[in-house]
């Protein structure tokens, strides 16, 4: 009994210690705020149910049982407990859950007119991001203004994926041949982690995405910057890195707007230097990690479609390529 008590106490301590890190319970977006009503219901029901059952176990096992004569009386009390604790209380929980469920569902929230439209295509194992209203293309990052609904249309041409930003909204399954809608509204500027939440093959673990929320004015600046960078790409002297890029055949899979590189198999690299991660969250986007990724992607993400270029490129060529890519901002 003591050990059980210790276990229960330990659980409670662990629970409260981890509460501060629980992303799902720290909502930073509209849909996630709605879900807090549901989680409050879950929490109340859980505490009530678990405390009652634990108390019942203690009473049944520890409280000294009486004589045979007591048995009839105890049975009658027990029958009442089955009715009250078993039936009435659980039915109340079921009804409460149903009411809260209907009240908190986010499925029918339709995006209003002033939205940012994003089309996301889930690949194995990265996310292609196209901003339909501004024509910007990117990968594994959704840049969004705060306080404005961002309507995301998600598709897949391969297997089932699921897009999940724990702090912003519930997950949305991505089903081949269907378009799933997910509306995100972020309260505050910040970087919100997201990931694939449906097993989609070997590198399901490395299929991250980030929602980068910024103030509407910063967002407008970002849009302008992205567009002007595209124009700059096409002008001036061809950098050495671009030469390596084209000579190595990188353009067969990747697009860099403003250049002749227009592959569509891999992520669009037009602004790759400004992204926070490489390989859908596999590595931070530093020069060293970019070099490592190009040389041998399978050292961090075995099974990824990108081949390694360690044998094909000299250190000098690799350096030039990394310099060039990291300069694409």
């Amino acid at each position, binding site marked *: 009994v003591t*050990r*059980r008590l210790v276990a*229960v106490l*330990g659980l409670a301590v*662990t*629970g409260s210690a*981890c509460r501060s890190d*629980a*992303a799902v319970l720290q909502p930073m977006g509209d849909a*996630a705020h709605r*879900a807090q009503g*549901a*989680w409050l219901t*879950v929490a109340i029901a*859980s505490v009530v149910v*678990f405390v009652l059952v*634990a108390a*019942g*176990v203690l*009473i*049944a*096992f520890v409280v000294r049982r009486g004589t045979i004569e*007591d*048995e009839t009386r*105890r*049975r009658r*009390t*027990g*029958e009442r*407990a*089955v009715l009250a*604790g*078993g039936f009435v*209380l*659980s039915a109340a*929980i079921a009804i409460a*859950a149903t009411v809260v*469920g209907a009240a*908190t569902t*986010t499925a029918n929230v339709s995006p209003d007119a002033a939205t940012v439209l994003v089309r996301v295509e889930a690949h194995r194992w990265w996310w292609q991001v196209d901003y339909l209203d501004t024509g910007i293309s990117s990968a594994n990052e959704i840049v969004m203004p705060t306080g404005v609904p961002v309507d995301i249309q998600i598709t897949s041409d*391969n*297997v089932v994926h699921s897009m*999940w930003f*724990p702090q912003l909204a*519930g*997950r*949305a*399954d991505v*089903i*081949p*041949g*269907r378009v799933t809608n997910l509306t995100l509204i972020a309260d505050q500027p910040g970087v919100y982690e997201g990931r*694939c*939440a*449906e*097993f989609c093959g*070997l590198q*399901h*673990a490395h299929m991250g995405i980030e929602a980068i929320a910024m103030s509407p004015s910063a967002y407008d600046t970002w849009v302008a910057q992205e567009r002007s960078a595209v124009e700059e790409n096409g002008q001036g002297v061809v950098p050495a890195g671009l030469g390596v890029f084209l000579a190595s055949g990188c353009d067969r899979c990747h697009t860099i707007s403003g250049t002749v590189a227009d592959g569509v198999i891999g992520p669009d690299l037009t602004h790759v230097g400004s992204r926070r991660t490489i390989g859908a969250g596999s590595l931070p986007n530093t020069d060293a990690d970019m070099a490592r990724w190009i040389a041998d992607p399978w050292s961090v993400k075995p*099974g990824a479609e990108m081949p390694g270029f360690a044998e094909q490129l000299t250190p000098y060529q690799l350096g030039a390529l990394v310099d060039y890519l990291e300069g694409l901002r």
Partner: protein
Amino acid sequence: MSARVTSTGEVVTARPSVPGAWRRSWAGVASVRTDVVSMRFVATSIAFLAVGGVVGLVMRAQLSWPTAHVVDPEGYAQAFTFHGTTMVLLFAAPLLFGLATALLGTSSVSGRLALPRLHAFAYWCYVAGGLVFLASLASATPPDAGWTETAPLSGPVYSPRNGTEYWIVAAALVAVAMVALSIQVIVTIADGLRVGPRLERGSGALGWAAVSASGIVLVAVVPLFAGLGMLGSDRLFGTGFFDETLGGDALLWQHLSFGFSVPLFVALFVLGAGLVCRVVEDVTGLPLVGASWVRAAFAFAAVVAVVSWGRELASSGVSGLAQSLFGAASVLVVIPIAIVIVSWLATLWAAPATYGAASTFVAGTALLAALVVCGTVATSIPASATSIGGSVFVVGLIHSIAFGGVVFPGMAVLVGRPGGDRGGPWARAGALVSLVGVFLFVAPMYLLGLRGAPRRAYTYDVATGFQALNVVETLGAALLAVGLIVTLASALGSRAVGRDEAVASGILPTRPRDRVMASSGVPVLAAVALTIALLGMLSYEPWLAGIGAVLVLLVLGGAAAAARSRTDELVFPGDGRPALWIALGVGVGVVAAFVAAYGYLALATSTWPPLLKFGYPPGLVLPTIAGGLLVLGAIAARAFGDWRALSIVLAVVALAAGAVEVVWLGTLPFEPAEDVYASSTFLLGWCLVAAAAVLAVGAIVDALSPRPTDGRERDPDVEARVGPLVPFATAAAVVAVLSWFTTSILPVIIG
């Protein structure tokens, strides 16, 4: 031919031409004594628990450090696929059904189950399924798409190798075993009803749980067989049921897969709870407090189970109304769980007894069941369900169900029986360690899920901070393993002593009261033949499938003929004729599937307009599944041998079909006339109607056939009670057919 009695009391017919030792060992292997077969289920399932547990510990080791390299990504995917498949299909269901049939057998009037050869057939199908699945490890590429084998990841494009075929065959064989076990339970209890007023001794809670779980399984295997048939045909013939580029739809797999797994988990929980009810009654020596509530709870859970699969689709883009309805259906299951928890605790409290290892497992079951209630509320409310769907939270809920509904109840029975709260200090220590371990194991999963950890991920980054909880989880898993090993060893040690004691006190029968047919080769050979036929179909080897089909026919046909001519020698009254029906049913089913599969190949390449009109032809799957159901129907119809029991099952199936059809089609956000849905519901409805028709024909034939006298008196009260069910069942069937027709056939005709 001379009969003699062996040292264990079995009647063995000696044949001079066969060496005695060989014959004795064959008789041992081919035993159809139902208590022996039930214990084989238990022993085999525990072996699979050990194998699956070791693989689980390997996964725990991999996740105890960020970016660890215990296994590579592929190895991890294979590991969780193996772990899930083993634990759900090869451990949980066989253990619970094995224990339940063992207890039902010994407490039934005749001291055994009603259909011994069907029981052995179920066991050998299960063993064959287990071996086929283990054989997938020897293939170059073991299955790695998760135990739910989500299409299209498990389809020909993304899993183009042969490992998945093994999984399909194994799942089909185990599903056949589960159907046979379910029929066994229902028939044995219906048999008992004919001679006595109670389902079994005591409060009858275990009987109700077993019948409810069996009913759920009979309904849940329909989408499973449909899914296996479609996935197999996608992989073999490129039909593209789950490939949108070929007119299919990946969402269809989710319906079929969850249509099986969600009800199955409820069935497992119900069966485990029924076993705990029996343990509580044994330990306290009292009938269950609130027994009528508990019986009603089990029946209620059976109804809820078959309509709650849709809660898993909350994130699949269904409408808010559908989400709310599915969530409401799903959360109802907390009511029966709460009722049984309170009933156990109240009974333990009411009795003036001291408690040991078995009761400790009962306490653990109650606490885990409380966690299941909490987890079910979280996964039923759409907003919270989608915010942790696909995360480790769900893994926590699944393991709460696994330990609270399967492992702990199983351990309670094993250390508690025979003879009450047995087990020395080691068993108690093991139970306490397991109890501490399971919470250290499960609780971190819920917390990790809330922190955003995705399930089925082979690694995580240091920065996520997931390590601490993972280490606690691994510690809990290790404690759990130690606790369970100690408990099992102790239970095995005390079992030998306990048996004599239990026999002396009348808990176990000294001998089954009927004369016992010691062995029969038919179940073994039939299971082997069925395995060959299935493997042949899925290994691209038509000749192997043909040989398998012919073998099935030969074995069962020969057995049936032999049984007919030797009816007087058969010791189970009426047991001769099922063999004939089984032979006919299996033969027709396999041949139908075989002809359909290869007939389809010819048709698929044709330009026959009706096939093209449907987007993809139902030409393969309809007959295959109808053939499979024909098998089940024929076995069931003949096995029941009683049209009243049959009408109960018909009512359950028809009501479930009606409920599924109405809930499914009424709440889908998609146009029902869309090809894939029209065709799939067409398929489901067609199968159910075919099954009902076959059952009805079997019942009529049976009613017209002369009955072997079994010497049992019928209870006129039972007749009066069961009689009114017939018009009820008929009405339910009519409603089901009508709802199916209006929702899935009409749109096709009109559209």
